[in-house]
């Protein structure tokens, strides 16, 4: 539990030139998000104040409409203890960082400002240019010290694609998935291999961890789930009256599950009592930067498309040069830099730039508008000129050379990026389509893409289902497994903006920079173009800025 020590709070306040009342410090330490609360308190304090008082702190916290949590400062424990289904997500709302400008999951155009002192740009009326510098950090935009920066990339398979498309490669990939995900579940159930269960006497209790081989409903309305481990498969029957219907709805093929239950009398089937997903633990130490620094999380730029919103992009990059954006030292782009070629039939008719290399050149030009000392991380998406099968390695040398501005880091999709202690899992998000298609509307929809992301977090895999929408390239390990729980999960692809917290993991789907295409019109998708979610790396609070 990351108890901010009172001492640290005091020293932080001191560094800003304040003294503090003892009670004020205690109050701050008890806040859900200490850093943010501290920040707010500092702002709430009159300019001439030298000492932060409890009043200041209270004013700051109340001002955000969020009472300081009486609970553990981490805020991780949902007091109700209710199961972590997304439908329970409403309880996650109070977990949100206090400086959140919009409630999670709300479409930005509907959000109204919470009236806090934080950046307040998602009000459609509030143009970035007039956003003002609310933080009081009136430092010049380029007054940055790169030596503070820490950026590490994990799970990058670029240049390490060792699969050769053999059967054994596939088997190895799926085995690796099973090994790693079942490891997460082993502590929770007493796993017996399929083979062993088959030999157990009828009526005994048993549990099995396996990849879902099949899920289907029976005539009588129950569900049959077939799990597979390295020894074979075993069927489990989920009775409709077990109250697990909601859980069964969420199951995707090939994800890793644990099922506990009782064997039938003939030992041929397991009657399920409970189901477990690998899931994200509720209690967890979240990372955070030691300083006030921010990252912009964007995706789906689609340069080269006739629908690329160049104006919005320029407003965004202009804003990055403003003092207000000074802390934005990182830019993470989750795929689809360009519109690509041959992505769908007759695409050339809708391309502004038909040449794929020129598309990247143009993208590089647009990227130059970003302040030169911004640290950039990019992963490819399905429109990019790399293989479509996931994991997708970072771009080829030729394209890297085109995009050499800013010395951007180009890594594979998915990849984890550790930015000053904040673990960000970047994944383009092709599997979201499938999750949205397979799961009931209330659990995953295009209007609330983060809910689909919650599912992936729960399954600890970015694209579980094989054989459907998602394409898989077999490698020596399954790079799509979410082995370590990230602090932030960043995706794109569906062109809808949405964010929310799931067990303290901030899931962000970052909208796009491409206006509605004919295809989207035909399927009635209204993309969220021109938004930039800005993440405070020290507090993990997020602000969404609108540039259209």
């Amino acid at each position: 539990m990351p108890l901010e020590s009172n001492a640290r709070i005091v020293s932080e306040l001191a560094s800003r030139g304040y003294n503090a009342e003892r009670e004020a410090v205690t109050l701050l330490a008890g806040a859900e998000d200490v850093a943010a609360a501290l920040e707010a308190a500092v702002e709430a304090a009159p300019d001439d104040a030298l000492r932060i008082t409890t009043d200041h702190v209270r004013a700051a916290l109340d001002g955000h409409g969020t009472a300081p949590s009486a609970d553990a400062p981490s805020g991780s424990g949902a007091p109700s203890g209710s199961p972590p289904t997304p439908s329970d997500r409403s309880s996650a709302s109070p977990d949100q960082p206090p400086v959140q400008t919009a409630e999670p999951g709300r479409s930005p155009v509907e959000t109204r400002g919470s009236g806090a002192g934080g950046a307040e740009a998602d009000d459609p009326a509030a143009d970035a240019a007039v956003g003002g510098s609310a933080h009081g950090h009136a430092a010049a935009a380029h007054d940055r010290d790169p030596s503070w920066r820490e950026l590490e990339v994990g799970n990058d398979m670029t240049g390490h694609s060792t699969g050769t498309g053999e059967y054994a490669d596939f088997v190895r990939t799926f085995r690796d998935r099973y090994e790693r995900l079942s490891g997460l579940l082993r502590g929770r159930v007493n796993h017996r291999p399929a083979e062993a269960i088959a030999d157990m006497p009828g009526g005994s209790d048993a549990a099995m961890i396996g990849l879902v081989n099949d899920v289907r409903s029976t005539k009588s309305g129950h569900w049959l789930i077939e799990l597979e481990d390295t020894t074979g498969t075993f069927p489990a029957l989920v009775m409709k009256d077990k109250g697990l219907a909601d859980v069964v709805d969420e199951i995707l093929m090939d994800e890793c599950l644990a099922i506990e239950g009782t064997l039938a009398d003939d030992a041929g089937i397991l009657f399920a009592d409970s189901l477990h997903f690998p899931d994200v633990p509720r209690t967890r130490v979240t990372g955070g930067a030691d300083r006030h620094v921010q990252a912009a999380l964007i995706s789906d730029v689609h340069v080269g498309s006739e629908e690329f919103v160049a104006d919005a992009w320029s407003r965004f990059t202009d804003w990055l040069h403003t003092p207000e954006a000074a802390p934005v030292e990182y830019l993470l782009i989750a795929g689809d830099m360009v519109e690509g070629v041959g992505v769908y039939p007759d695409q050339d008719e809708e391309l502004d730039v038909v040449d794929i290399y020129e598309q990247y050149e143009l993208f590089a030009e647009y990227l130059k508008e970003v302040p030169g000392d911004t640290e950039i991380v990019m992963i490819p998406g399905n429109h990019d000129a790399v293989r479509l099968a996931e994991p997708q390695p970072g771009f080829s040398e030729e394209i890297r050379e085109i995009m050499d501005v800013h010395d951007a880091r180009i890594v594979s999709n998915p990849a984890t990026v550790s930015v000053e202690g904040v673990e960000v899992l970047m994944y383009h998000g092709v599997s979201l389509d499938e999750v949205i298609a397979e799961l009931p509307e209330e659990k995953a929809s295009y209007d609330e893409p983060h809910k689909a992301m919650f599912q992936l977090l729960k399954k600890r895999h970015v694209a579980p289902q094989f054989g459907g929408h998602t394409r898989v390239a077999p490698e020596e390990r399954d790079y799509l497994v979410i082995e370590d729980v990230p602090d932030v999960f960043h995706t794109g692809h569906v062109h809808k903006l949405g964010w929310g917290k799931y067990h303290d993991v901030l899931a962000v789907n970052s909208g796009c920079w491409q206006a509605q295409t004919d295809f989207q019109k035909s399927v009635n998708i209204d993309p969220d173009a021109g938004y930039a979610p800005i993440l405070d790396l020290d507090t993990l609070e997020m602000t969404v800025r609108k540039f259209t």
Partner: protein
Amino acid sequence: MRADDERYFARLEERLDEAFEVAGTAKAQGKDPKPEIEIPVARDMADRVENILGIDGVAERVRELEGEMSREEAALELVTDFVEGTVGDYDSRAGKIEGAVRTAVALLTEGVVAAPIEGIDRVELLENDDGTEFINVYYAGPIRSAGGTAQALSVLVADYARALLGIDEYHARTEEVERYAEEIALYDRETGLQYTPKDEEAKFIAENIPIMLDGEATGDEEVSGFRDLERVDTNSARGGMCLVAAEGIALKAPKIQRYTRDLEEVDWPWLQDLIDGTIGKDGGDGEEEGGGDDAGEGDGGDDGTTDGNADEASGDDAADPAGPPRPKPSRKFLRDLIAGRPVFTHPSEAGGFRLRYGRARNHGFATAGVHPATMHLVDDFLATGTQIKTERPGKAAGVVPVDSIEGPTVKLANGEVRRIDDPEEALAVRNGVEEILDLGEYLVNYGEFVENNHPLAPASYVYEWWVQEFAAAGADVQALADDPNVDLERPEPGAALEWAEAYDCPLHPAYTYLWHDVSVADVEALAEAVAGGEVVEGVLAIEHTERVARALETLLVEHAATPDALRIPTWRPLARSLGVDDGLRKEWTPEDLPREAREWDGGDDAVKAVNAVAPFAVRERAPVRIGNRMGRPEKSESRDLSPAVHTLFPINEAGGPQRDVAEAARTMDDRGRRGHLELEVADRACPDCGTHTYRSACPDCGTHTEPHYECGDCGTVCEPDEAGRVECPRCEWEVTAATRQEVDLNDAYRSALESVGERESAFEILKGVQGLTSTNKTPEPIEKGILRAKNGVTSFKDGTVRYDMTDLPVTSVRPEELDVTADHFRELGYETDIDGDPLRHDDQLVELKVQDVVLSDGAAEHMLRTADFVDDLLEQFYDLPRFYEVNERDDLVGELVFGMAPHTSAATVGRVIGFTSAAVGYAHPYFHAAKRRNCFHPATTIAYLEEGERREISIEAFVESRLGDPETDDFGTLVQELDGDVRVPSIDERGNGTTRSVTAVSKHPSQDHFVRIRTRSGRTIRVTPDHTMLRVADGEIRRTPARELAVGDRVPAAHSGEREQSTDASAASADGGVDVDEIVEAELVESGVEYTYNITVSDTHRLSANELWVEQCDGDEDCVMLLMDGLLNFSKTFLPNQRGGKMDAPLVMSSRIDPSEIDDEAHNMDIVRRYPLEFYEATREMADPEVVEDRIKLGEDTLGTDDEYRGFDHTHDTTDIAMGPDLSAYKTLGDMMEKMNAQLELARKLRAVDETDVAERVIEYHFLPDIIGNLRAFSRQETRCLDCGEKYRRMPLSGDCRECGGRVNLTVHEGSVSKYVDTAIEVAERFDCRPYTKQRLYVLEDALESIFEDDTNKQSGIADFM
């Protein structure tokens, strides 16, 4: 009818009678299931109606009534006859009504469809709640083929009969009324209706209709309310009833009202409410949408911007005199271009086929006349009968050779530009051709424009136009034509120039060059060059410059070229056209040109300029070019089965996969007996001695046996009723004669051999069938099979021997070209040639009689063998004299055959008059009939692509959702053409994956049976027995009818995970290969459904259905059967026992064609010798074809007159109807790569073809979808156990097969994914494709590398070692 025609038909019928007599004698011996001939002869529609119904006296009455009233009225009139008992032999009132209703439907459907017999199951009398009686008509699904009017009229007829018989009206109970509404809505959801009445409407109909409409259940979906009604036996939707109520009564109310008004006894006042739409009907009447469907490229709006722009351009042209009239180019035909099928002309591109109007004698509906020299010059890709997709006027056409039009013009390697009008010359120079400057003329008849309702396109200036202008200008054409020194068609240059000047007539077309293709500037340059040239020995030599040379080539001026000079032998007309006189003096300067001429079509069209400087008028020589590309190759092949069926005798599994009867006869059972099989065959009883046997003749006394119907439950022996139904009176179910009985096959086989006096060595193998599918399962005598096997022919499901051929029309022939003599013709009753001169010589042209057919060499061969078989049969089996006695094929001349149009139940008698080397069946256009389609079970899952994603859906849902405004053909098929936006995965003949567009969807009344095929990996599919399936043998994919698939056959497998097929690594080769699956079960099953569905896939005609690659159907093929074979061997008894099984079987035979009763498309053929001047002028206006309809006689104009069988004149002759290559290069070239290289090579040579575009399209439509699809398939593939075939959606974690522990492997390997990449890139580079295309390929190549290569172990380049 003229006496001449009468004699002709009499002759045919005389021979027919002869055959009937012989066959009748043979049949009377009782060795066949029925002791009489089972194909009744129908002379006309009335006969067909009578025969199809089997009700005596109908024909006579129909003939009486036909002259006096419409068919509808006749149908009503006949009701009185039935009621009074003057027609039909019915005792019961229900029977009388049934007869009347059936007759009405038969009459309205002209007696060619099975609806009257299969669509109306029965009529019964039931009781109303008040105790009165009412009539219930029990409809079945095939009623659909009758069409709305006949459906509705059937109800009216029933009501009329009801009124006459004094039976009460039907009073529907409330729940029944509600049921109708629910059921119709359900049926519409499930199956789809053309018109869906609202609930109120349906209820209104149900409340008011005086007859109860009932029917059998179709489909599985049940109604949710109003179930288990007393008077309705099913809870499912009753398809026939729904159709009659919705598409009949509701949709055709106005038509019905017309007849009810005339009938006193019948009063349906409620129809008015239906018509007025006061029953809550909304505006969207299904019929209204029918009108707006433009033919041809009228619906080409989806062709993208190209079309749009062109449209505007041509619109401007029409309004603005600054350019010539031109139809807008349409690129539609280029869609889905596939590797190996070349483009001949890009849309409206100069240098391509020049549109010439006319009808050659071997020309008719959907055909295109091409010069045989052109066929050779396009590297033999075109042959007689090859189908091409065309730009206009229709969509596709069969190629016919016509050498009376201009041939192609080529540039030879030595620089010579020469027009080639001789196929021999074409072959001689073919290797030296550097460029094909012009493909020659392309003959299209006026009727084709009428049929397609396509506006006329400006005509080429040709002799037949010029000569009319010449005559109009005052020339005495007749005198000149009679002058032996003058060749009007190909005059000397001097004469042509003189005529042009003397009569002020446009220059003769022979010397009219293609001025519209060159620019004004070119003309100026050329004129300068000509003026600066010199004449040496009559040949004009001018300076060789690039511009002038290209201009001459474009103009199609024949010349020779040396590096310095261009030598033009025939130069005077050229010079004069250029305003240069014979002394090479140029008398004009560019400034003399009027502004209009200079700026005509932006200066790119020099016609006006030439007219300004030439001393005479110069017309546009070839303003319209017709784009086209190759479609399907021609076809002529016997319906050979594999495994073949020689005898319709069941042997269960005993014969092995080959169904070898001898092997089955040798098989020993558990008790050590050989050939004892338990077979399901008919139980027949001898009327004389009472012996029970499966044989048609009593083994004891030789008497003909009759089926013995014994109820399997209670043992009651039943008799068939008047309608032929056998129902057990006690158990009330249908009883058949089929029973399981032990048969000593060994004995049957040996005694059959003995009885025909043959030894086993007489044939290689005798193949039987696994089981019989007919109702009573009567087997055929094995003797027939033995003789078939001996003569090398095989049997169709109905016992006949058949041969398929692509149809081509011909109206006049020369004995010579048919490999027969004038003597033969005279024997056949041909007396004069087309000009009325006595027929003396083999090369005289005679008008073909309407039922005379020309067999392809292959068909003749096959017919010879069939004739031998029939003779053997007569001699050895029936102990009768031989009938045909053929020794050589000449002996076949004059013999009669049956022509069967697919999916009909009526055969047409034809007479063989000769043979052709072309691989097609030539016959009179009236002889040819509609199209055939074979289909899938509705539940078949097909794969298609939506937004590039593979989707799977049941074919029923797929088709129904697209039957927006379908056309109904004569056989009850609903067809909806699609614009090609929907694509499906497909494979070519080498098994290479590709995607193709769907051009049409259709829905057909179901046949009785399906073949169900199950494969080792558990795939199953149900298709109609004749459906063409694909089989993999010897590394090739072969086509075979479904019913011929046997256990052990290997079939190509498609993968549900993907749109493309995969390749087994071991089979992966440069040209692909497919994954295969093995058949473990193939059996006939009852259909149980009412409709089958089909989709038409462009080019490959293949699609993935239930994860198997199958062929869709193919159309346009007739088959022929030898007359005697049909008479002796056809039996309805053999036909599968369910609905639709009677299709494609000769239930009735027309001995003479009534032109009024054939399909309309043949009527739109023009039959004149010359098109009038007004026609040519109308083409310049781009008028609608109707404008000149009065001036050009069409077939339809002679209908019903004495001339309906004659006077099919043509405008163009051709030397031989089988010129050009016999087979398309497409069929003779090897693998796909070879074909594609030939295709691209040809594209390079053709001026009218943009080879880059061809390469782009091949890449775009063939390679890219293949690579992308296979790549996608790879990354989401299934795996399969190599040992037991078990398939896994995902790779098992154990690595091994969970079933058998065997080795599991991928179904899509690297080989199949990357096989085309290198070729595609090579083609893209070689033909300089767009960077976009190349980049797509390179991106894909990178993706492949990324997946299939280990980054850490990259292959080192050679540089690493240097």
